[in-house]
């Protein structure tokens, strides 16, 4: 259960809220001039970000107001809550919260003794250290 801090009401249970999808998707200035493809992309195509993601939420059983939230889609860490219409705040990446980048390091599968040895298999850069930090929280 997420504990979400509504800007009006304070921390409440996730069940009091409704999810409103990706934030900062502007309505096209001239919808008539869009091709079908562009219109479809406006309507249905959304980012599927791994990591920090700006999204809209509605406190539906509380103050019934919309707000924006910056949430980490891996750790569920809520990084910022800000009003509708405000620009997306920048959040300094915390080096302790790094995840998913170990697999691109050249030595991620060849050094370290914590994970099971997978040398000899050809599964690519798989390593126990790529499991997201806090995923089991």
């Amino acid at each position, binding site marked *: 259960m997420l504990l979400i801090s509504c800007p*009006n*009401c*304070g921390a*409440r*249970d996730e*069940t*009091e809220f409704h999810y409103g999808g990706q934030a900062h998707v502007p309505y096209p200035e001239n919808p008539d001039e869009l091709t079908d493809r562009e219109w479809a992309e406006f309507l249905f195509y959304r980012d599927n970000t791994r990591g920090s993601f700006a999204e809209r939420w509605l406190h539906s*059983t*509380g*103050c*019934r*107001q919309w707000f924006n939230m910056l949430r980490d889609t891996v750790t569920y860490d809520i990084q910022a809550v800000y009003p509708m219409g405000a620009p997306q705040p920048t959040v300094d990446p915390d080096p302790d919260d790094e995840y998913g980048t170990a697999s691109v390091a050249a030595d991620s599968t060849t050094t370290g003794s914590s994970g099971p040895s997978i040398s000899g298999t050809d599964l690519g850069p798989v390593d126990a250290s790529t499991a997201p930090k806090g995923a089991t929280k």
Partner: protein
Amino acid sequence: MARTTAHATQDNDLSRRTSPAAPLAEAFEAGSVAGVAELREEPFLTMVGLRVKRGTEVGERIAAVTGGLPEGSGGVSGNEGTSVLWLGPTEFLVVAPMEAHEALGGDLIRSLLDALGDGEGQVVDLSANRTTFELTGSRARAVLEKGCSLDLHPRVFGVGTAFSTEIGQIPVILWKTGEESYRIFPRASFADFLGRWLLDAMREYASPEVP
């Protein structure tokens, strides 16, 4: 402005109306434990939905009728008999006794409409939207805590605060009217479920305490 509220007539037959939790009235009586956890329905209270900005000219006019508009989450203001509960930054619920309704000769809604005038906002008669449960007793808080995730400890949830939240997964407004008394406003169609849910939550307090 269209007015859809009932008009005062000479032959209002009050005995013909049924409150949402009326079928549970006997069960409420049987399930209540005096002084420990008592539940009853307080039906037909006058409720008015307000949409108005605080601090504006219209807001001030309406606040003069209701005895102020609460400032933020949890706030309740009001004068004798009339209370205003904060629901949102521009949304309030006026709760007044049954007699305040114009069908019974009251003038609350009329005076709120007059205060609104043609200003920006709304005054809507919502008396039939929700019913009112009164839960009192030394264990009332323990009953609510079984299904409400708010912190109901007195240091956080004081007398004279009201929050819109969930009890037993039902969206309600929960108003603490006294140290051991709460008013719960479920929507009419949820009254039966919530009434039974509360009865179930109260049942253990009818038994002798296990040492």
